[in-house]
């Protein structure tokens, strides 16, 4: 019984269904309604926390053949991904990062110099000194992707219940019983994939997952002439930036609106967009001519260390997969497999010890 129809709930459902297990997904709104459906769609290995790199690599293997997994291309467009350095100290940080990765045996990230940045990003300003670079990351269409995971899972027998809000949870004789807005559901194992709402659910399952809901904002421009193919971020200044095939440019990266998870609403903060827009203009001078046509924000769950919780709960028959802190989209195809392992009692191949649920308890006790 998976609570939450975001990409992680859907991926877990898919992996379980592929292995022949009976699975239900309870979603309080509709599948992909919140962060999973409205994020920037970054399929990014670049710049990940070292603990996440092995999972991101495993996920990338799925992304390369995403049609084989979900029978849909998910709008996935592999491209270059660059994180631009604008100062010498940023450049030094990039070099150190790549060395650390190499020491762990990962070769996918590399440092590229000023001339190469010029070659990859002809529209970038002159003060871009270099960049962290990955070839083969890219982006996908988040809503379509999440629905594709759902549809494939459904085809394999998973059952999805939308507009189904979990009101009460109880465990008797080894069975979880969820009383919802559309009836009672029972299962031996419950998966908490409730995103920004996972803290409440975790508490009812006996665990402390200090999730905070934020509303990262995204902006999109009117169509512009094609000027950039890679997805671009920057060091020291939050920005994520990409141009779609139709010419519109998506700008995200850090600016936040206000999240109201209790009513599922967000409020945008136009006063707070200045910094990211100035960075966008700074990296790509052509953006001074852009028109913003739409902005939005999704409700996403963040944890204090910006790493997710992936692991068994304290009580029997509980698995948490939540708190991805705005970078869970790319990981989902692989994390679903890990969750399926945890649900079925087998040991995941990938190391998930850094994501254990009790890590916040120990911090608090100290």
């Amino acid at each position, binding site marked *: 019984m998976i609570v939450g129809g975001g990409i992680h709930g859907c991926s877990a459902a898919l992996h379980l269904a592929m292995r022949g297990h009976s699975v239900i997904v309870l979603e309080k709104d509709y599948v992909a309604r919140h962060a999973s459906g409205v994020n920037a769609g970054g399929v990014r290995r670049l710049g990940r926390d070292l603990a996440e790199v092995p999972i991101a690599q495993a996920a990338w293997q799925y992304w390369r053949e995403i049609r084989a997994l979900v029978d849909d291309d998910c709008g996935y467009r592999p491209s270059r991904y660059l994180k631009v350095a604008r100062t010498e100290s940023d450049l030094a940080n990039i070099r150190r990062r790549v060395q650390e990765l190499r020491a762990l045996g990962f070769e996918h990230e590399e440092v590229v110099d000023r001339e190469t940045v010029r070659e990859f990003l002809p529209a970038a300003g002159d003060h871009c000194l270099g960049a962290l670079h990955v070839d083969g990351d890219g982006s996908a269409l988040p809503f379509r992707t999440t629905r594709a995971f759902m549809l494939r899972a459904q085809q394999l027998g998973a059952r999805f219940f939308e507009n189904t809000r979990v009101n009460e949870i109880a465990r008797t004789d080894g069975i979880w019983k969820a009383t919802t807005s559309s009836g009672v559901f029972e299962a031996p194992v419950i998966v908490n994939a409730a995103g920004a709402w996972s803290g409440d659910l975790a508490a009812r399952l006996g665990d402390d997952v200090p999730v905070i809901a934020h509303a990262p904002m995204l902006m999109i421009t009117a169509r512009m002439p094609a000027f950039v193919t890679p997805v671009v971020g920057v060091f020291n200044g939050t920005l994520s930036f990409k141009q779609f095939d139709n010419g519109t440019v998506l700008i995200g990266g850090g600016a936040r609106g206000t999240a109201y998870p209790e009513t599922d609403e967000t409020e945008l903060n136009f006063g707070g967009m*200045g910094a990211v*827009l100035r960075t966008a203009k700074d990296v790509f001078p052509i953006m001074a001519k852009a028109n913003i046509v*739409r902005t939005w924000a999704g409700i996403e769950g963040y944890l204090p260390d910006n790493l997710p919780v992936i692991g068994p709960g304290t009580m029997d028959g509980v698995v948490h997969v939540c708190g991805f802190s705005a970078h869970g989209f790319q990981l989902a195809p692989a994390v679903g497999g890990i969750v399926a392992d945890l649900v079925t009692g087998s040991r995941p191949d990938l190391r998930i010890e850094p994501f254990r649920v009790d890590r916040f308890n120990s911090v608090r006790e100290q």
Partner: protein
Amino acid sequence: MMADAYDLVVIGAGPAGMAAAATACTAGARVLVLDDQSTPGGQIYRAVENAGNWESNVLGPDYIAGKANVRTFRDSRVEYRAGAVVWQVTGSREIGYSYQGQAQIIRPRSLILATGAMERPMPIPGWTLPGVMTAGAAQTLLKSSALAAEGALFAGSGPLLYLIAYQYLKAGLHVEAIVDTTPRHNRWRALPHLPGALLNWQMLNKGRKWISEIRALGTPILKGAGELRVLGDEVAEGLAWRRHSGAWQEVSSSHVFLHQGVVPNINLSMAAGLQHDWDAIQICWRPRCDDWGRGSCDKIFIAGDGAGVGGAAAAHAAGRIAAIGALSDLGLISQGDRDREARGWRAVMRREMSFRPFLDAWFRPPDQLRVPDDENTTVCRCEELTLKDIRDAIAIGLNNPNSVKSFCRSGMGPCQGRFCGLTLQEIIARDTGRAPGEVGYYRLRPPIKPVPLNELANIEFDPVQQNDRI
């Protein structure tokens, strides 16, 4: 920044907005009016200040009457910003707008939305071809720059369609034909409302006058038309339709002007998060408000056609009532004064609105012209999506405007759903067997109108500080 010291900001300088602003000023309130046109008047009195004999003859006395409204507005002490584009309003009255190349955010003590009506979309095959526009857009060109097309074809229904065709004829232009899509059975549904309409018999007379003069000038009025489609591949070449008898008819013209009534323009009130109700009679959303025009968020009022279509005189009265209500809520006038001053305007409202049920029933656009049947008909113009694209999304189980939007991008373009929102909602309702009101509407994502990135990049706004000053 002093901008937050406004007692009242009025968005829109049409009949409702002008009346509201002038009323509030006379009571000593500090009032700012934001309007995207270059002169006051709104759609109906567009450019009326500079109207001379030609305009008077062509556009008629109802138009010229707007001169007095504009003069009163100009003579008040209101701060008026022409060419100000409002692109965001929040439920806590934060207003984002662009004026003279700068984006600003202000937060007044009260707010009146007077953003008027917009034409209902008429998604027939070929409605996006060059040469096709709404009759309202054709009228805008006539009013603002005396631009007009010779030999145009007017198709659709409603008083405005006839008025604009009449104005075209008065301008000495040839009008090819008026193709009237009003369903014949509507008249039986309208009949019970006739006594109410008779309270405002001048209006009925006006309509009869237009029609008889149009006929006298030799323009054919072709009634009972259905299944309209614009002819032409690259540009409009004419219109084909099915007559009541079942036979097909065609008329050639390179200009086809479509119109099937107006609905409240709810983009700002929706973006502000105000509650709206589905009006099954007028087939549109209306912001929920009380009889002062108070919406569901604190000190936000809606006045005029934006709250429910009633025409210019009703809008003027509603503007005054909302201003009086706002002044009282701000403590600038007593409740006794409020109630006394509003009384006369309420009577005007009642008289004007008495005509609406009759009009609404008579001119109710047929389902077939609101909800396309032909799978190749464009639904979302900005993203170039057809009925088939929308149906593909519905087929995978998506059943509300927002999930369909997320899937296929409908309503994501610069018009923010103004051209497709109602159509999409009714398509989903029809295909999933639900009432349109149950299906809901797009969540509107500001900016409601495009804003230059440069302007947003320079905004300095500290909401906390602003709150402190209130």
